[in-house]
Protein backbone atom coordinates (compact mmCIF):
# COMPACT_ATOMS: atom_id res chain seq x y z
CA UNK A 1 0.00 0.00 0.00
CA UNK A 2 1.25 3.53 -0.72
CA UNK A 3 1.90 5.59 2.38
CA UNK A 4 -0.06 8.67 3.44
CA UNK A 5 -2.89 8.17 0.94
CA UNK A 6 -5.56 7.73 3.61
CA UNK A 7 -6.15 9.72 6.79
CA UNK A 8 -8.09 9.57 10.04
CA UNK A 9 -10.50 12.54 9.99
CA UNK A 10 -12.73 11.56 12.90
CA UNK A 11 -11.85 9.94 16.22
CA UNK A 12 -13.69 9.68 19.49
CA UNK A 13 -14.30 7.44 22.46
CA UNK A 14 -17.62 6.87 24.18
CA UNK A 15 -18.92 9.80 26.20
CA UNK A 16 -18.11 7.88 29.36
CA UNK A 17 -15.43 5.29 30.05
CA UNK A 18 -15.18 3.01 33.04
CA UNK A 19 -18.22 1.45 34.63
CA UNK A 20 -21.31 2.18 32.53
CA UNK A 21 -24.13 -0.04 33.80
CA UNK A 22 -26.87 2.03 32.15
CA UNK A 23 -25.80 1.54 28.50
CA UNK A 24 -25.83 -1.64 26.43
CA UNK A 25 -22.85 -2.75 24.35
CA UNK A 26 -24.69 -1.98 21.11
CA UNK A 27 -25.55 1.53 22.30
CA UNK A 28 -21.90 2.04 23.27
CA UNK A 29 -21.06 1.36 19.60
CA UNK A 30 -23.58 4.01 18.59
CA UNK A 31 -22.37 6.50 21.21
CA UNK A 32 -18.77 6.19 19.98
CA UNK A 33 -19.89 6.38 16.34
CA UNK A 34 -22.00 9.50 16.87
CA UNK A 35 -19.14 11.18 18.74
CA UNK A 36 -16.73 10.38 15.89
CA UNK A 37 -19.20 11.58 13.25
CA UNK A 38 -19.56 14.87 15.14
CA UNK A 39 -15.77 15.10 15.50
CA UNK A 40 -15.41 14.76 11.71
CA UNK A 41 -18.27 17.16 10.97
CA UNK A 42 -20.09 14.48 8.97
CA UNK A 43 -23.58 13.02 8.78
CA UNK A 44 -24.28 9.30 9.18
CA UNK A 45 -25.38 9.24 5.53
CA UNK A 46 -21.82 10.21 4.51
CA UNK A 47 -20.54 6.84 5.75
CA UNK A 48 -20.27 4.27 2.94
CA UNK A 49 -17.82 1.84 4.53
CA UNK A 50 -18.05 0.14 7.91
CA UNK A 51 -15.97 -2.20 10.05
CA UNK A 52 -16.37 -3.64 13.52
CA UNK A 53 -15.49 -6.72 15.58
CA UNK A 54 -17.41 -9.14 17.83
CA UNK A 55 -20.72 -7.42 17.04
CA UNK A 56 -21.47 -8.00 13.35
CA UNK A 57 -21.33 -5.18 10.79
CA UNK A 58 -25.01 -5.82 9.97
CA UNK A 59 -25.98 -5.40 13.61
CA UNK A 60 -24.22 -2.08 14.10
CA UNK A 61 -25.01 -0.73 10.60
CA UNK A 62 -28.70 -1.42 11.04
CA UNK A 63 -28.76 0.11 14.51
CA UNK A 64 -27.04 3.26 13.25
CA UNK A 65 -28.96 3.39 9.97
CA UNK A 66 -25.86 3.12 7.78
CA UNK A 67 -26.08 1.73 4.22
CA UNK A 68 -22.55 0.66 3.39
CA UNK A 69 -21.04 -0.48 0.10
CA UNK A 70 -18.04 -1.99 1.89
CA UNK A 71 -17.95 -3.87 5.19
CA UNK A 72 -15.31 -5.69 7.20
CA UNK A 73 -16.16 -7.94 10.14
CA UNK A 74 -12.63 -9.10 10.86
CA UNK A 75 -12.75 -10.26 14.47
CA UNK A 76 -9.40 -11.49 15.70
CA UNK A 77 -9.49 -10.11 19.22
CA UNK A 78 -8.31 -6.82 20.62
CA UNK A 79 -6.22 -5.78 17.62
CA UNK A 80 -9.13 -6.22 15.19
CA UNK A 81 -9.32 -2.44 14.85
CA UNK A 82 -5.72 -2.17 13.67
CA UNK A 83 -6.62 -4.67 10.96
CA UNK A 84 -9.75 -2.66 10.14
CA UNK A 85 -7.64 0.47 9.66
CA UNK A 86 -5.35 -1.43 7.30
CA UNK A 87 -8.24 -2.97 5.36
CA UNK A 88 -10.12 0.34 5.22
CA UNK A 89 -7.08 2.15 3.87
CA UNK A 90 -6.75 -0.46 1.13
CA UNK A 91 -10.46 -0.26 0.32
CA UNK A 92 -10.42 3.53 0.09
CA UNK A 93 -7.35 3.43 -2.13
CA UNK A 94 -9.03 0.82 -4.33
CA UNK A 95 -12.12 3.01 -4.67
CA UNK A 96 -14.50 0.57 -2.97
CA UNK A 97 -15.74 3.28 -0.62
CA UNK A 98 -14.92 6.85 0.35
CA UNK A 99 -15.59 7.27 4.07
CA UNK A 100 -15.15 4.40 6.50
CA UNK A 101 -16.43 4.21 10.08
CA UNK A 102 -14.75 1.72 12.42
CA UNK A 103 -16.43 1.09 15.76
CA UNK A 104 -15.52 -0.80 18.88
CA UNK A 105 -17.55 -1.08 22.03
CA UNK A 106 -17.63 -3.53 24.86
CA UNK A 107 -19.63 -3.78 28.03
CA UNK A 108 -16.69 -5.69 29.47
CA UNK A 109 -17.41 -4.88 33.10
CA UNK A 110 -21.17 -4.45 33.29
CA UNK A 111 -21.93 -7.14 30.67
CA UNK A 112 -25.04 -5.33 29.39
CA UNK A 113 -26.07 -6.76 26.04
CA UNK A 114 -22.83 -8.72 25.75
CA UNK A 115 -22.71 -12.42 25.04
CA UNK A 116 -20.37 -14.27 27.42
CA UNK A 117 -17.24 -15.72 25.85
CA UNK A 118 -17.37 -19.48 25.49
CA UNK A 119 -15.17 -22.24 24.14
CA UNK A 120 -16.86 -25.11 22.31
CA UNK A 121 -15.77 -28.45 23.83
CA UNK A 122 -15.10 -29.89 20.37
CA UNK A 123 -12.94 -26.97 19.21
CA UNK A 124 -9.18 -27.45 19.38
CA UNK A 125 -9.01 -25.00 22.29
CA UNK A 126 -11.86 -26.86 23.95
CA UNK A 127 -10.11 -30.20 23.58
CA UNK A 128 -6.47 -29.32 24.16
CA UNK A 129 -6.43 -26.30 26.47
CA UNK A 130 -9.72 -25.88 28.37
CA UNK A 131 -9.51 -29.27 30.19
CA UNK A 132 -6.28 -28.14 31.86
CA UNK A 133 -7.83 -25.26 33.73
CA UNK A 134 -7.41 -22.19 31.55
CA UNK A 135 -10.17 -19.79 32.42
CA UNK A 136 -10.04 -16.39 30.81
CA UNK A 137 -7.08 -14.31 29.66
CA UNK A 138 -5.28 -14.02 33.05
CA UNK A 139 -4.73 -17.79 33.02
CA UNK A 140 -3.63 -17.89 29.37
CA UNK A 141 -1.89 -14.70 28.27
CA UNK A 142 0.93 -14.96 30.86
CA UNK A 143 1.76 -18.61 30.04
CA UNK A 144 4.82 -17.66 27.94
CA UNK A 145 6.24 -15.22 30.54
CA UNK A 146 8.39 -17.56 32.64
CA UNK A 147 10.11 -18.94 29.54
CA UNK A 148 10.63 -15.43 28.16
CA UNK A 149 12.11 -14.32 31.52
CA UNK A 150 14.48 -17.28 31.68
CA UNK A 151 15.64 -16.92 28.08
CA UNK A 152 16.39 -13.21 28.33
CA UNK A 153 17.20 -12.76 32.01
CA UNK A 154 14.15 -10.55 32.64
CA UNK A 155 13.36 -9.99 36.35
CA UNK A 156 10.10 -9.78 38.29
CA UNK A 157 11.06 -6.21 39.28
CA UNK A 158 11.46 -5.20 35.63
CA UNK A 159 8.06 -6.64 34.79
CA UNK A 160 6.60 -4.76 37.75
CA UNK A 161 8.12 -1.51 36.49
CA UNK A 162 5.91 -1.68 33.38
CA UNK A 163 2.86 -1.08 35.58
CA UNK A 164 4.62 1.63 37.59
CA UNK A 165 5.61 3.65 34.52
CA UNK A 166 2.19 3.39 32.93
CA UNK A 167 0.57 4.63 36.12
CA UNK A 168 2.78 7.73 35.80
CA UNK A 169 1.26 8.38 32.38
CA UNK A 170 -2.26 7.66 33.66
CA UNK A 171 -1.81 10.25 36.41
CA UNK A 172 -1.71 12.88 33.65
CA UNK A 173 -4.93 11.66 32.08
CA UNK A 174 -8.26 12.80 33.59
CA UNK A 175 -10.09 9.93 31.86
CA UNK A 176 -7.78 7.22 33.20
CA UNK A 177 -9.44 4.74 35.53
CA UNK A 178 -6.43 4.37 37.89
CA UNK A 179 -4.34 7.45 38.64
CA UNK A 180 -2.75 6.98 42.07
CA UNK A 181 1.04 6.47 41.94
CA UNK A 182 2.33 2.95 42.59
CA UNK A 183 5.78 1.50 43.29
CA UNK A 184 7.49 -1.72 42.21
CA UNK A 185 6.90 -2.98 45.76
CA UNK A 186 3.18 -2.19 45.46
CA UNK A 187 3.02 -4.25 42.28
CA UNK A 188 4.95 -7.17 43.75
CA UNK A 189 2.77 -7.14 46.87
CA UNK A 190 -0.55 -6.94 45.05
CA UNK A 191 -2.83 -9.98 44.98
CA UNK A 192 -1.57 -12.97 43.02
CA UNK A 193 -3.66 -13.66 39.93
CA UNK A 194 -1.66 -16.15 37.87
CA UNK A 195 1.98 -16.52 38.88
CA UNK A 196 4.16 -14.75 37.89
CA UNK A 197 1.55 -12.00 37.45
CA UNK A 198 -0.18 -10.07 40.19
CA UNK A 199 -3.22 -7.85 40.06
CA UNK A 200 -1.36 -4.67 39.06
CA UNK A 201 0.26 -6.46 36.12
CA UNK A 202 -3.14 -7.41 34.67
CA UNK A 203 -5.37 -5.09 32.70
CA UNK A 204 -8.43 -3.37 34.06
CA UNK A 205 -11.90 -4.61 33.18
CA UNK A 206 -14.11 -1.71 32.12
CA UNK A 207 -16.88 -0.59 29.76
CA UNK A 208 -16.48 1.74 26.82
CA UNK A 209 -15.92 2.14 23.14
CA UNK A 210 -14.34 4.18 20.40
CA UNK A 211 -14.70 4.96 16.73
CA UNK A 212 -12.54 6.17 13.87
CA UNK A 213 -13.42 7.70 10.52
CA UNK A 214 -11.06 7.35 7.57
CA UNK A 215 -11.09 8.92 4.13
CA UNK A 216 -8.62 9.68 1.35
CA UNK A 217 -5.79 12.05 2.21
CA UNK A 218 -6.83 14.33 -0.64
CA UNK A 219 -10.28 14.84 0.94
CA UNK A 220 -8.88 14.99 4.47
CA UNK A 221 -7.71 18.59 4.24
CA UNK A 222 -11.35 19.74 4.00
CA UNK A 223 -12.24 18.30 7.42
CA UNK A 224 -12.28 20.32 10.66
CA UNK A 225 -9.57 18.29 12.44
CA UNK A 226 -5.90 18.03 11.64
CA UNK A 227 -5.60 14.93 9.43
CA UNK A 228 -3.63 11.97 10.78
CA UNK A 229 -2.18 9.97 7.91
CA UNK A 230 -1.84 6.21 7.67
CA UNK A 231 1.85 5.89 6.95
CA UNK A 232 2.35 2.15 7.26
CA UNK A 233 0.40 -0.97 8.19
CA UNK A 234 0.97 -4.63 8.98
CA UNK A 235 -1.04 -7.61 10.17
CA UNK A 236 -0.76 -11.32 10.83
CA UNK A 237 -2.18 -14.23 12.79
CA UNK A 238 -0.46 -17.19 14.40
CA UNK A 239 -2.55 -19.55 16.52
CA UNK A 240 -5.64 -19.35 18.74
CA UNK A 241 -3.90 -21.73 21.18
CA UNK A 242 -1.27 -20.04 23.29
CA UNK A 243 0.33 -23.44 23.91
CA UNK A 244 0.98 -23.83 20.18
CA UNK A 245 2.98 -20.64 19.54
CA UNK A 246 6.18 -21.38 17.64
CA UNK A 247 8.16 -20.06 20.59
CA UNK A 248 7.52 -18.28 23.88
CA UNK A 249 10.56 -16.07 23.27
CA UNK A 250 8.71 -13.88 20.80
CA UNK A 251 5.43 -13.55 18.92
CA UNK A 252 5.47 -14.61 15.29
CA UNK A 253 2.47 -12.38 14.58
CA UNK A 254 4.29 -9.37 16.12
CA UNK A 255 7.42 -10.13 14.12
CA UNK A 256 5.38 -10.22 10.91
CA UNK A 257 3.05 -7.25 11.41
CA UNK A 258 5.55 -4.82 12.93
CA UNK A 259 8.27 -4.93 10.27
CA UNK A 260 5.62 -4.78 7.49
CA UNK A 261 4.35 -1.50 8.90
CA UNK A 262 7.83 -0.03 9.36
CA UNK A 263 8.80 -1.02 5.81
CA UNK A 264 5.67 0.44 4.28
CA UNK A 265 6.16 3.68 6.21
CA UNK A 266 9.81 3.77 5.21
CA UNK A 267 10.89 4.65 8.74
CA UNK A 268 13.61 3.51 11.11
CA UNK A 269 13.14 2.99 14.85
CA UNK A 270 14.89 6.26 15.67
CA UNK A 271 12.13 8.08 13.73
CA UNK A 272 9.42 6.96 16.17
CA UNK A 273 8.33 9.79 18.48
CA UNK A 274 5.49 7.99 20.21
CA UNK A 275 4.69 4.34 20.72
CA UNK A 276 1.66 2.35 21.81
CA UNK A 277 2.05 -1.37 22.54
CA UNK A 278 -1.19 -3.06 23.58
CA UNK A 279 -0.64 -3.98 27.21
CA UNK A 280 -3.30 -6.41 28.34
CA UNK A 281 -0.61 -7.76 30.65
CA UNK A 282 2.78 -6.41 31.72
CA UNK A 283 4.90 -8.62 29.46
CA UNK A 284 3.43 -7.33 26.21
CA UNK A 285 5.49 -4.12 26.00
CA UNK A 286 8.62 -6.26 26.38
CA UNK A 287 7.57 -8.63 23.62
CA UNK A 288 6.63 -5.62 21.49
CA UNK A 289 9.87 -3.68 21.97
CA UNK A 290 11.86 -6.76 21.05
CA UNK A 291 9.70 -8.16 18.25
CA UNK A 292 9.27 -4.77 16.58
CA UNK A 293 13.05 -4.43 16.58
CA UNK A 294 13.50 -1.47 18.92
CA UNK A 295 16.15 -3.42 20.86
CA UNK A 296 17.18 -6.99 21.67
CA UNK A 297 14.66 -8.70 23.94
CA UNK A 298 17.35 -8.99 26.63
CA UNK A 299 17.38 -5.20 27.01
CA UNK A 300 13.64 -4.55 27.09
CA UNK A 301 13.09 -5.05 30.83
CA UNK A 302 15.93 -2.80 31.90
CA UNK A 303 14.97 -0.23 29.25
CA UNK A 304 11.57 0.21 30.89
CA UNK A 305 12.89 -0.08 34.46
CA UNK A 306 15.42 2.67 33.67
CA UNK A 307 12.61 5.07 32.83
CA UNK A 308 13.11 5.39 29.09
CA UNK A 309 9.39 5.00 28.41
CA UNK A 310 8.06 7.24 31.20
CA UNK A 311 7.05 10.89 30.86
CA UNK A 312 10.14 12.76 29.69
CA UNK A 313 11.84 9.51 28.59
CA UNK A 314 13.31 9.03 25.12
CA UNK A 315 10.61 6.63 23.91
CA UNK A 316 7.19 7.62 25.30
CA UNK A 317 5.16 4.40 25.52
CA UNK A 318 1.48 3.86 26.32
CA UNK A 319 0.95 7.51 27.11
CA UNK A 320 -2.74 7.17 28.02
CA UNK A 321 -1.84 4.83 30.88
CA UNK A 322 -2.51 1.72 28.80
CA UNK A 323 -4.74 -1.24 29.44
CA UNK A 324 -3.12 -1.49 32.87
CA UNK A 325 -4.27 1.95 34.07
CA UNK A 326 -6.35 3.81 31.44
CA UNK A 327 -9.09 1.39 30.52
CA UNK A 328 -9.50 -2.11 29.08
CA UNK A 329 -12.90 -3.19 27.92
CA UNK A 330 -11.66 -6.58 26.69
CA UNK A 331 -10.54 -5.44 23.24
CA UNK A 332 -8.21 -2.55 23.98
CA UNK A 333 -6.83 -1.94 20.47
CA UNK A 334 -9.27 0.88 19.70
CA UNK A 335 -8.08 2.88 22.74
CA UNK A 336 -4.45 2.54 21.68
CA UNK A 337 -5.42 3.85 18.22
CA UNK A 338 -7.36 6.74 19.79
CA UNK A 339 -4.30 7.76 21.82
CA UNK A 340 -2.04 7.64 18.75
CA UNK A 341 -4.51 9.87 16.90
CA UNK A 342 -4.69 12.32 19.84
CA UNK A 343 -0.89 12.46 19.97
CA UNK A 344 -0.70 13.13 16.23
CA UNK A 345 -3.36 15.82 16.51
CA UNK A 346 -1.40 17.35 19.38
CA UNK A 347 -4.31 17.18 21.84
CA UNK A 348 -3.41 14.26 24.14
CA UNK A 349 -3.68 14.89 27.90
CA UNK A 350 -0.03 13.83 28.20
CA UNK A 351 1.07 15.27 24.88
CA UNK A 352 4.53 14.36 23.56
CA UNK A 353 5.79 17.73 22.36
CA UNK A 354 6.43 17.87 18.64
CA UNK A 355 5.59 14.21 17.97
CA UNK A 356 5.34 13.53 14.22
CA UNK A 357 5.32 9.73 13.99
CA UNK A 358 3.34 7.36 16.19
CA UNK A 359 3.51 3.56 16.05
CA UNK A 360 0.47 1.71 17.36
CA UNK A 361 0.91 -2.03 17.86
CA UNK A 362 -1.90 -4.38 18.79
CA UNK A 363 -2.31 -7.97 19.89
CA UNK A 364 -5.45 -10.10 19.84
CA UNK A 365 -6.78 -13.37 21.25
CA UNK A 366 -3.75 -13.87 23.50
CA UNK A 367 -0.94 -13.98 20.92
CA UNK A 368 -3.27 -15.17 18.15
CA UNK A 369 -3.19 -12.03 16.04
CA UNK A 370 -1.41 -8.76 15.59
CA UNK A 371 -1.80 -5.47 13.75
CA UNK A 372 0.54 -2.48 13.53
CA UNK A 373 -0.29 1.01 12.29
CA UNK A 374 2.21 3.83 11.74
CA UNK A 375 0.58 7.26 11.90
CA UNK A 376 2.01 10.63 10.96
CA UNK A 377 0.72 14.20 11.02
CA UNK A 378 2.92 15.29 8.11
CA UNK A 379 2.28 14.36 4.53
Amino acid at each position, binding site marked *: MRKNQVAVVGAAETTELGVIPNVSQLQLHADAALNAIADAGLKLSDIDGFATAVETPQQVCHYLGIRPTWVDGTSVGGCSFMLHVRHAAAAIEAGLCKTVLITHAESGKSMIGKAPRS*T*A*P*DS*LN*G*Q*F*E*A*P*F*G*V*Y*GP*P*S*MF*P*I*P*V*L*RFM*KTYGITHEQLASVAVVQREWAAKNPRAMMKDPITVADVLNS*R*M*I*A*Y*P*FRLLQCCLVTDGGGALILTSADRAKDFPRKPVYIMGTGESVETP*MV*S*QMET*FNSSRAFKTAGPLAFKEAGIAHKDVDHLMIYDAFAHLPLFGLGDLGFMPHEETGQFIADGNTRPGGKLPLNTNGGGLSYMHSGMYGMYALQESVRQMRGIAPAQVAGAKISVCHGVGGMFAASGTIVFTNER
Partner: protein
Amino acid sequence: MAEPQRARPKPTPETQHFWDGAKAGELRLQRCDACAHVYFPPRPFCPSCASRKVSIFKASGKGFLYSYVINHRPAAPGFTPPYAIAVVELAEGPRMMSNIIDCPQTPEALELDMKLEVAFEALDDKITLPVFRPAKG
Protein backbone atom coordinates in the same frame (compact mmCIF):
# COMPACT_ATOMS: atom_id res chain seq x y z
CA MET B 1 -26.40 -28.26 43.05
CA ALA B 2 -23.75 -30.58 41.64
CA GLU B 3 -20.09 -29.62 41.93
CA PRO B 4 -18.99 -27.61 38.87
CA GLN B 5 -17.24 -29.93 36.47
CA ARG B 6 -13.91 -29.58 34.76
CA ALA B 7 -14.24 -28.75 31.05
CA ARG B 8 -14.67 -32.00 29.11
CA PRO B 9 -13.09 -32.30 25.67
CA LYS B 10 -15.41 -33.56 22.95
CA PRO B 11 -13.45 -35.46 20.28
CA THR B 12 -13.98 -34.86 16.57
CA PRO B 13 -13.32 -37.43 13.82
CA GLU B 14 -9.84 -35.93 13.34
CA THR B 15 -8.90 -36.11 17.03
CA GLN B 16 -10.60 -39.36 18.08
CA HIS B 17 -7.37 -41.38 17.85
CA PHE B 18 -5.70 -39.09 20.37
CA TRP B 19 -8.47 -39.53 22.95
CA ASP B 20 -8.72 -43.28 22.26
CA GLY B 21 -4.97 -43.42 22.89
CA ALA B 22 -5.20 -41.53 26.18
CA LYS B 23 -7.91 -43.91 27.35
CA ALA B 24 -5.63 -46.82 26.46
CA GLY B 25 -2.71 -45.24 28.33
CA GLU B 26 -0.87 -44.03 25.23
CA LEU B 27 0.15 -40.54 24.21
CA ARG B 28 -0.42 -40.57 20.45
CA LEU B 29 1.18 -38.13 18.05
CA GLN B 30 1.28 -37.96 14.27
CA ARG B 31 4.25 -38.07 11.93
CA CYS B 32 4.30 -37.12 8.27
CA ASP B 33 5.28 -40.05 6.03
CA ALA B 34 6.66 -37.63 3.44
CA CYS B 35 8.78 -35.18 5.48
CA ALA B 36 8.94 -36.88 8.91
CA HIS B 37 7.53 -33.79 10.67
CA VAL B 38 5.93 -34.68 14.03
CA TYR B 39 3.03 -32.45 14.98
CA PHE B 40 0.20 -31.70 17.40
CA PRO B 41 -2.74 -31.07 17.73
CA PRO B 42 -4.10 -33.86 15.52
CA ARG B 43 -5.11 -33.38 11.89
CA PRO B 44 -5.12 -35.76 8.90
CA PHE B 45 -2.41 -33.91 6.96
CA CYS B 46 1.02 -32.49 7.60
CA PRO B 47 0.97 -28.79 8.56
CA SER B 48 4.56 -28.51 7.37
CA CYS B 49 4.41 -30.00 3.83
CA ALA B 50 0.64 -30.55 3.29
CA SER B 51 1.00 -34.28 2.61
CA ARG B 52 -2.08 -36.33 3.50
CA LYS B 53 0.10 -39.39 4.11
CA VAL B 54 0.55 -39.30 7.87
CA SER B 55 0.87 -41.96 10.56
CA ILE B 56 -0.23 -42.15 14.16
CA PHE B 57 2.37 -43.42 16.60
CA LYS B 58 2.82 -43.86 20.34
CA ALA B 59 5.03 -41.11 21.71
CA SER B 60 7.64 -41.73 24.39
CA GLY B 61 5.67 -39.68 26.91
CA LYS B 62 8.88 -37.91 27.92
CA GLY B 63 9.39 -34.18 27.83
CA PHE B 64 10.32 -31.11 29.83
CA LEU B 65 8.58 -28.16 31.42
CA TYR B 66 8.61 -25.36 28.83
CA SER B 67 6.56 -22.76 30.72
CA TYR B 68 3.59 -22.41 33.06
CA VAL B 69 1.44 -20.17 35.21
CA ILE B 70 0.14 -20.99 38.66
CA ASN B 71 -3.46 -19.90 38.48
CA HIS B 72 -4.95 -18.34 41.60
CA ARG B 73 -8.05 -16.56 40.34
CA PRO B 74 -10.42 -16.89 38.75
CA ALA B 75 -10.23 -20.68 39.01
CA ALA B 76 -11.73 -22.84 36.28
CA PRO B 77 -14.69 -25.00 37.32
CA GLY B 78 -13.48 -28.25 38.85
CA PHE B 79 -10.07 -26.82 39.86
CA THR B 80 -8.88 -25.86 43.32
CA PRO B 81 -6.45 -22.94 43.24
CA PRO B 82 -3.56 -22.51 43.16
CA TYR B 83 -2.92 -24.93 40.30
CA ALA B 84 -0.33 -24.93 37.56
CA ILE B 85 -1.25 -24.78 33.88
CA ALA B 86 1.81 -26.05 32.09
CA VAL B 87 3.13 -26.30 28.57
CA VAL B 88 5.25 -29.40 28.08
CA GLU B 89 7.72 -29.80 25.26
CA LEU B 90 7.68 -33.45 24.22
CA ALA B 91 10.83 -35.36 23.31
CA GLU B 92 9.41 -35.76 19.80
CA GLY B 93 9.17 -31.97 19.36
CA PRO B 94 5.58 -30.79 19.70
CA ARG B 95 4.37 -28.94 22.77
CA MET B 96 1.09 -29.46 24.58
CA MET B 97 -0.79 -27.90 27.44
CA SER B 98 -1.24 -30.08 30.49
CA ASN B 99 -1.14 -30.19 34.28
CA ILE B 100 1.72 -31.33 36.53
CA ILE B 101 0.87 -33.95 39.15
CA ASP B 102 2.83 -35.39 42.09
CA CYS B 103 4.54 -32.04 42.53
CA PRO B 104 3.82 -29.02 44.75
CA GLN B 105 2.18 -26.29 42.71
CA THR B 106 4.84 -23.73 43.66
CA PRO B 107 7.49 -21.74 41.76
CA GLU B 108 10.15 -23.48 43.86
CA ALA B 109 9.03 -26.98 42.89
CA LEU B 110 8.13 -26.21 39.29
CA GLU B 111 11.49 -25.56 37.70
CA LEU B 112 11.59 -24.70 34.02
CA ASP B 113 13.28 -27.44 31.97
CA MET B 114 12.59 -30.11 34.61
CA LYS B 115 12.12 -33.53 33.03
CA LEU B 116 8.59 -34.86 32.91
CA GLU B 117 6.81 -38.06 31.98
CA VAL B 118 3.23 -38.61 30.96
CA ALA B 119 0.56 -40.05 33.23
CA PHE B 120 -3.13 -40.50 32.59
CA GLU B 121 -6.06 -39.21 34.55
CA ALA B 122 -9.52 -40.59 33.80
CA LEU B 123 -12.22 -37.94 33.97
CA ASP B 124 -15.00 -40.43 33.29
CA ASP B 125 -15.52 -43.62 31.29
CA LYS B 126 -15.13 -41.73 28.01
CA ILE B 127 -12.35 -39.19 28.53
CA THR B 128 -8.88 -39.63 29.95
CA LEU B 129 -6.48 -36.68 30.04
CA PRO B 130 -2.73 -36.88 29.57
CA VAL B 131 -1.02 -35.13 32.48
CA PHE B 132 2.65 -35.06 33.46
CA ARG B 133 4.71 -35.80 36.56
CA PRO B 134 8.36 -35.18 37.38
CA ALA B 135 10.40 -37.93 35.68
CA LYS B 136 11.90 -40.57 37.97
CA GLY B 137 15.67 -40.82 38.09
